[in-house]
Structure formats: C-alpha cells, structure tokens
C-alpha cells in the first residue's frame, strides 16, 4: 500500500501503537515485567507464548480492562490514558475475546451493533440500517450469510469469528486484537479466519493475533512477539526465524537479544 505525500510518510514510520515498560501486578504475582510492544500500520503481529505467559493480561491493559501499574501507551504517536474498554474503542482498538465476543441467542446484526445500536427517535432501533450495514460488513470480509436475523448459535465457529471481526471492521477499528480466534476451530474454519485477518490487513487495519499455537499464526503474521512468564523474550520478523526455532523459544523461555 502506498501513501503519497510527506505527512503520510511520517505516519507510516511511526507505529500505530507503542506500549512501553508495562508492569502489572496481581497481588504478589508480577504478571507483566517491563513489557514493550509495538504494532505498525497494517501490520499483523503474532503474540505468542505458553498458557499463563501474560498475553491476555497485556492485551487487557491495551483494551482498558486492566490498568497497568507502570508503563506508557502511545497511540498514533500520542500518549494515551486508557482506563476503560470504552476509551480503547474510542481510539479505534477493538478486542475480540475467545468466548466473550458474542451473545449466542441474539441475531447477527444485534450482535454486531451490540451497545451501539443505530437509533431512530426515542432510542428505537433503526432495524433496516442495522441489517443492511451488518450484511455489508460481513460481505466485505467475504462472509455471505443468508440473513442478519439468524441467531449466532446456528453459525459455525469460523462464521462466529467472522461476525466478531465484521463488528470491528464496521466500527472503523484501526487495530483489531484477536484473542485465540482459532482455538476451538476445525482446520477449514481456521483457514476461514485467517482469510478474514488477511482482509483486515488489506483494509489497512493492524492486527494483534494472540495464540499459543504458532502454526496458526505463522502463515499470516509478519512479526512475532514471544512472552514467557510475564517477560518479552523475543520480537522477531517472520523471515528471521523458522517455526521450529520460534517454538523452541516459546517452550524454553530463553531470552533472545536482537
């Protein structure tokens, strides 16, 4: 993607998000120790690490669920203070959690617009607009569903991720954080989700893909950040390392100085 003009070049150089020296304690547990994380524009970053490495905690700090005990966050070069999920969303950071993203018995469109329903007078929902825009967002991800009134329960796992991602897309997210989006999915569904992520990048949206199965993230991500027991142990570009070497890093927790 090319941006003409000088100003845009500046934006491209400067990362979309920069987290610096993040610390988080839960009582006596030091869950994050001096963690830095950077995501550039239209970049897909794989955030990998074993269970309990601090991946989710780091993301919850970014999405405003937890407050960091120390450290700074910069968004588009400006220092920001994210104290609630609402703050994060206002900046353009959308987080899609594993089990928490969707209400299974509500319709697709009601899920996409949950909490942000378009309204007519007196707070009545503008159903036509909601349904139309839902279908638009879904089809721009390449997901064609028969009706936006279908409840989530009847969708496959891959389609559900698609709905959650369509929501982020519709609300003009600049950064989409996916927390284990492929965890319970079949191979085919995983491929679907990876295609959605590729679509997001084409739309100019950055993605943080959290997973502990490196094989899922490897095909799409350009860079990998490895967390081990609350510390960042590696930050490597895809070309610099093979899957095997990276897996080795995650398992051993050896620190990589690069």
């Amino acid at each position: 993607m090319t941006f003409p003009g000088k100003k845009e070049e500046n934006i491209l150089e400067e990362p979309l998000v920069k987290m610096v020296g993040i610390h988080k304690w839960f009582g006596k547990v030091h869950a994050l120790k001096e963690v830095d994380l950077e995501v550039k524009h239209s970049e897909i970053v794989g955030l990998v690490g074993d269970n309990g490495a601090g991946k989710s905690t780091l993301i919850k700090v970014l999405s405003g669920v937890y407050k960091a005990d120390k450290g700074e966050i910069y968004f588009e070069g400006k220092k920001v203070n994210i104290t609630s999920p609402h703050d994060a969303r206002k900046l353009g950071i959308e987080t899609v959690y594993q089990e928490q993203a969707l209400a299974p018995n509500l319709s697709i469109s009601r899920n996409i617009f949950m909490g942000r329903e378009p309204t007519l007078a007196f707070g009545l929902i503008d159903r036509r607009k909601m349904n139309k825009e839902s279908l638009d967002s879904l089809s721009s991800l390449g997901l064609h569903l028969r009706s936006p009134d279908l409840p989530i329960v009847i969708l496959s796992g891959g389609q559900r991720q698609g709905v959650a991602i369509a929501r982020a897309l519709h609300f003009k997210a600049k950064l989409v954080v996916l927390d284990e989006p492929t965890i319970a999915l079949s191979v085919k569904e995983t491929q679907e989700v990876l295609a959605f992520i590729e679509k997001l990048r084409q739309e100019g949206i950055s993605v943080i893909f959290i997973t502990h199965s490196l094989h899922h993230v490897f095909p799409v991500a350009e860079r990998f950040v490895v967390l081990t027991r609350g510390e960042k142990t590696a930050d490597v570009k895809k070309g610099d390392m093979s899957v095997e070497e990276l897996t080795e890093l995650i398992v051993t927790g050896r620190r990589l100085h690069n």
Partner: protein
Amino acid sequence: MLLVLIGLIVVFSLLSPHFAFTSPENIKVFLALAPEFGIIALGVGLLMICGEFDLSIGSLLVFSTFIFVRLSETNLSLLLVGLIIIGVGALLGFLNGIITVKGRIPSFITTLGTMMFWRGITLLLSRGIQRPFTSEASLFFRSVFTGEVAGIIPVQMIWFIGIGIFLGILLHFHRFGNWVYATGDNKEAARAMGINTDMVKIICFIIVGILCAFVAMIQIIRVGSFSSRVGQGWELKAVAASVVGGTSLMGGIGSMVGIFCGTFIIIVIENALTMLRISYSWTYVVFGLVIISSVLVNFYMEKRRLRYGSKVSEESSSG
C-alpha cells in the same frame, strides 16, 4: 403459544358447568382481577430475560399497599400519595438491584431475603391486622384504576395490555431491549461492548418494583381493605408464567408476546379451575404439569430450530 391459550379457553368454556367460565359475570371479574398478577408477571419476565429473578414481588406489593393505606389516611392529596408509592416501589426495586449487582449475590438469594424482610416489616407495622381503606375522595383514582372502558371492559385489562405493549416495544424495538438480551445472554460480551450490565439489571429490578407499587394501588382500591397476606405465592407463579411463555431460566431467551401469553395461560387456568368447581389444591397440580410440559416442549422446539437452522447457514455460507 397463542394456540395453547386459545385452546385452553375453548376447552374450559366447554367443560365448565352452565358455561360459567364464559358467563359475562365471570369474564368481567376475570378481566378485572387477573391483570393484577399479570402486570407484575410481565415485569418479572423482562427481569428474567436479563438473567435475574425477583422472589420479593409479593412482599414489595404488600409493603407498598400498606404504605399507600397509611399515607392515604393523612392529609396528603391522593395523587401525591400515588406518586410517592410509585417512588417507594422504584426504591425497593433499586435496593434489590443494587444489592444483587454490587454485592455479587445471586438475585435468587437477594430477593429471597427481601421477600422475607419486607413482608416481616409490613407485619410488624400493621400488626397483621386488616385495615379498611376508604377511598371516598378518590373518584379520579377509582376511574383510573378500577373503572371501565366503554362501560364493559375493566380498565385493569387495558393497563395490562398497555403495559405489555410498552414493555414489548422496550424489549424488542428499543436499544435498551437489546442491552437486556445481551446482558442475559452473555454478560461478558455485553460488558466488553460497553454496555453497563449492572445498570441494565438495576433498571429491570426498578421496573418490577414500580409495577408492584402500581398494582398495589389497583388492588387496594378494588378490594378496599388491607390484608398482610396479599401477594403471597405470586413470586413463583410469576416465574412459572414466564417459563410457560418460553423464557429461559438462564436469561437471554424470551419474548414479551410469550411472557404475555404465559401469564394469561396461568391466570386462565387458575380462574377456570375455580369456575369448574375443582378444589383449589388441584390448581397447583395443574400448574406443576403445565410448567414441566411447557419447558419440555420449548426445549424440544429449540433443538429442532437449531438443527434446522445450522443446515440453513451451512448452505448459504461461503468462506
């Protein structure tokens, strides 16, 4: 659901001796009396969709009734008293809500507690004595709460239908309704999407409280004397009405039309069994059967819907 209701009405009409069930007198009494329970049950259904229970409705009702009777004995204008009572109902509902969400106590327990507490307080204050309610100065109140529309239809029924439509619009067409469903269906998702689920729940509790206070006034004006036993046994009957109407005990599933029909089914059964001169004890036997069978039917239909639905979505999707 509607078919079940109509079926019941037809069967009861045919069964009742001398067609007492469909006699104008019975219909009139039924239409005046049944909405008292029905109005509250609608609120309980709404609350259940957002994932909470209220077992204290009978006690909120009796407490508001008592306060209403006491205040009407003072010099305050009855209109003001009415407003105060609505405020009391809202406050009691708010207390149920705030204790539940801030204390992180299951509302089943919170409202079990407030059910005992407010009934106890009412008994203490009233010493369990019946108290006459003289509403001479309240022609306005009488016509608003116990009058008749077009000379035949008791106004209570109009309130019942009106409140049903209002709550239906709120639930199905207003954004607040979407928050109620989301809160009951997946609280974490709702919260992650910026919905203040605590507030949604508290508002639903307040709606139930207000409806209790409202019914307290309708009822006392109709009955004319205060009894501390008012509303006993309504709490589970209201839950039953919602469940019969297809509301999930886990929250997130249900509709106002369903709740309305479920409530109607419960009150029709209760009235009809009386008119059939069947011992009141049988009412509970029938309630028991109706509740269990309706849950089984709902469960079966839900399963069928899912099986059918997933086929549909597979056919129509492409990655």
